[in-house]
C-alpha cells in the first residue's frame, strides 16, 4: 500500500490552543503568580523537584500555564531549563550546613538536639476546613502579624545550623561503620545518557528528580512484597541550605573567597536498614545499612522512598524488580514516562493503518480458504 501524507489540521490546532486558554480563564478568575507562590508550596516543591530546577517563581509560572497539572508543569520547567546556559557548579553542599526547620527521627526518641516537628500535616485530622472558603488576605496578614509579634522565651538558644546528625552519633557509638569521603567527581545524567551498570552518582541523580508518585509506589512495593528491606527513618530534616560557588574569575577555591547565591529548601532522609551478616564461625549479627534520600523542597514521602530505593539498587538483589537498575531508573522520570504514555494519543495513522491492512489481508485469506473448503 502507499502511504499518503495528510495536512489540514492547522486551523483545528490553533482553535484547540485557544480552547485550552478558554478552559483556564473561563471562570473569570485567574491564579496569580504570587498567589501560587503563596498558597501552593507543596505543588511548587514537587514540580521543582521533578523538574530538577530550583526556582519557586518559574515553578509557579509552569503551574499556572499547566492549570495545576504537575506532569505538564514539570515538562514546561524541563523544557525551559534546556534553553538556559549552565554557568557554574556549586561548592559541595553538606547537610550539616542546613538551617533546620524540621528534624525528626523515627528510630530514636532521644536524639541529640531533640525532635523538632517544624511545619507538618502529620498531626492534623485531615478534615476539610470549610472556613478556608471565607478566608481573606486581610485575615491572613493579621494572623501572620500576630504570630510574628509573639515574643518567644529564649530558653533554647541552640543554633539550628550545624545541628547534630543522628548518623554521626551512631557512627561514634560504633553502631554504623564509618567511611572516608569519596571524592570522585560525579557523573551527570543530563549530559550523558545512562548506561548499565550505573554509578552511584547517576542513580542518586535519577532518583532525586524522579516522579514523586513513581518513586513512592516502587518503594512501597519494596516494603510490601517486592523487596527484603525493612527500613526506619533514622533522621529526616527539612531546612534551608546555603549555596556557594568558587570564584570563577580567579579560579580560587578558598571558602572565604566563594560567592554566596542564596538558600534553597531541601528535604534529606537517612533510612536505617537492618541486615543480618554472618560473622566468624557462622555467628549471625545485625548491622545497619543506610539508604539516602534528598530532594528539592519539602517532599518527605519522596525523600523517604528515595532512601529505600537507593539501598535496593546498591544491593542489587536479583530476586526483585525493585533492585533492577533498568526497571527503576528508566521508568521513574516524569517527562520520560508521561511523555511516552501520552504520545500514544498523538496521530499513529500510518502505523495503525499498516496493522489494519495486515489484519484485513489475513481476514480475506481466511475467508477465501473457508470458501474453498466449503466447495
Amino acid at each position, binding site marked *: 500500500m502507499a502511504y499518503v501524507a495528510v495536512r489540514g489540521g492547522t486551523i483545528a490546532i490553533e482553535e484547540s490552543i485557544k480552547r485550552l486558554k478558554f478552559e483556564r480563564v473561563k471562570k473569570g478568575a485567574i491564579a496569580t503568580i504570587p498567589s501560587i507562590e503563596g498558597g501552593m508550596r507543596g505543588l511548587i516543591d514537587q514540580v521543582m523537584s521533578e523538574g530538577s530546577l530550583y526556582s519557586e517563581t518559574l515553578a509557579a509560572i509552569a503551574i499556572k500555564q499547566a492549570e495545576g497539572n504537575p506532569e505538564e508543569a514539570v515538562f514546561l520547567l524541563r523544557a525551559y531549563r534546556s534553553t538556559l546556559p549552565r554557568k557554574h557548579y556549586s561548592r559541595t553542599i553538606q547537610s550539616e550546613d542546613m538551617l533546620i526547620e524540621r528534624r525528626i527521627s523515627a528510630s530514636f526518641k532521644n536524639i541529640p538536639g531533640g525532635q523538632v516537628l517544624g511545619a507538618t500535616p502529620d498531626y492534623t485530622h485531615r478534615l476539610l476546613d470549610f472556613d478556608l472558603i471565607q478566608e481573606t488576605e486581610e485575615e491572613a496578614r493579621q494572623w501572620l502579624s500576630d504570630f510574628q509579634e509573639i515574643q518567644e522565651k529564649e530558653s533554647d538558644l541552640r543554633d539550628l545550623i550545624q545541628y547534630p546528625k543522628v548518623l554521626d552519633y551512631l557512627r561514634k557509638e560504633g553502631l554504623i561503620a564509618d567511611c572516608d*569521603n569519596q571524592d570522585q567527581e560525579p557523573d551527570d545524567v543530563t549530559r550523558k545518557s545512562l548506561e548499565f551498570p550505573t554509578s552511584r552518582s547517576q542513580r542518586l541523580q535519577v532518583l532525586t528528580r524522579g516522579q514523586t508518585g513513581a518513586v513512592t509506589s516502587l518503594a512501597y512495593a519494596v516494603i510490601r512484597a517486592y523487596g527484603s528491606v525493612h527500613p526506619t527513618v533514622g533522621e529526616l530534616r527539612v531546612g534551608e541550605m546555603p549555596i556557594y560557588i568558587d570564584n570563577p574569575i580567579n579560579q580560587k577555591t578558598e571558602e572565604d573567597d566563594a560567592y554566596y547565591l542564596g538558600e534553597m529548601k531541601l528535604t534529606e532522609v537517612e533510612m536505617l536498614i537492618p541486615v543480618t551478616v554472618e560473622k566468624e564461625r557462622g555467628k549471625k549479627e545485625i548491622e545497619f545499612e543506610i539508604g539516602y534520600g534528598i530532594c528539592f523542597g519539602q517532599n518527605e514521602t519522596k525523600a523517604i522512598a528515595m532512601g529505600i530505593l537507593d539501598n535496593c539498587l546498591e544491593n542489587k538483589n536479583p530476586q526483585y524488580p525493585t533492585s533492577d537498575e533498568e526497571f527503576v531508573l528508566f521508568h521513574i522520570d516524569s517527562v520520560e514516562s508521561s511523555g511516552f504514555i501520552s504520545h500514544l494519543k498523538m496521530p499513529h495513522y500510518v502505523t495503525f493503518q499498516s496493522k489494519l491492512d495486515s489484519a484485513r489481508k489475513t481476514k480475506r485469506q481466511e475467508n477465501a480458504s473457508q470458501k474453498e473448503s466449503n466447495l
Partner: protein
Amino acid sequence: MKRKRRTEILINGSKELAAQLADEIIHHYDVETIEEPNNGLVMVKVRETAKKSMFYMGEVFVTECKVQINGSIGLGIVKSHDHELAYQLAVIDAAYNVGLQETSEWTSRLLGEEERIVEQRKTAQSKVLKTKVSFETMDDE
C-alpha cells in the same frame, strides 16, 4: 571583609543596602558592564551521608552580571531572577577587587546589617524551637 561573608550579608539583608553601596560607586567611577544581567543555571553538587560520595541533585536558577572598574572585573550572582541586585552585587564586587577607598568605610555598615540578620534568624529559630518535643519519659529507653 571577605567575599563569602559580604555576599551573605548583601543577599540576605536589606535590598536597600546593596543599592546604596552600588550607587556610591556608580556615581563616582566609570563602571563598564561587560556582561548584562542574564539568567542561567548553577548545578548543585551534594555530598551524601550514606557512603559520603558526591552527586548532582539538580540546578538552581540564577541571575549573573559582570562589570569592570579600572580594569578589575566584578561578578554579581544571585539565586532567582533579579537583574537589579545582580548588577549591584557586581559593582560592589568590582569595588572590592580594585580596592576602592569607599569599601573600607562599608565594613561597619555591613557588620550592622549582619547583626540585624542574626537577630532576625534568632527570632525565627525561637519560633521553630517551639515545635521541639519535650518527651515525658515513660520508660528508661
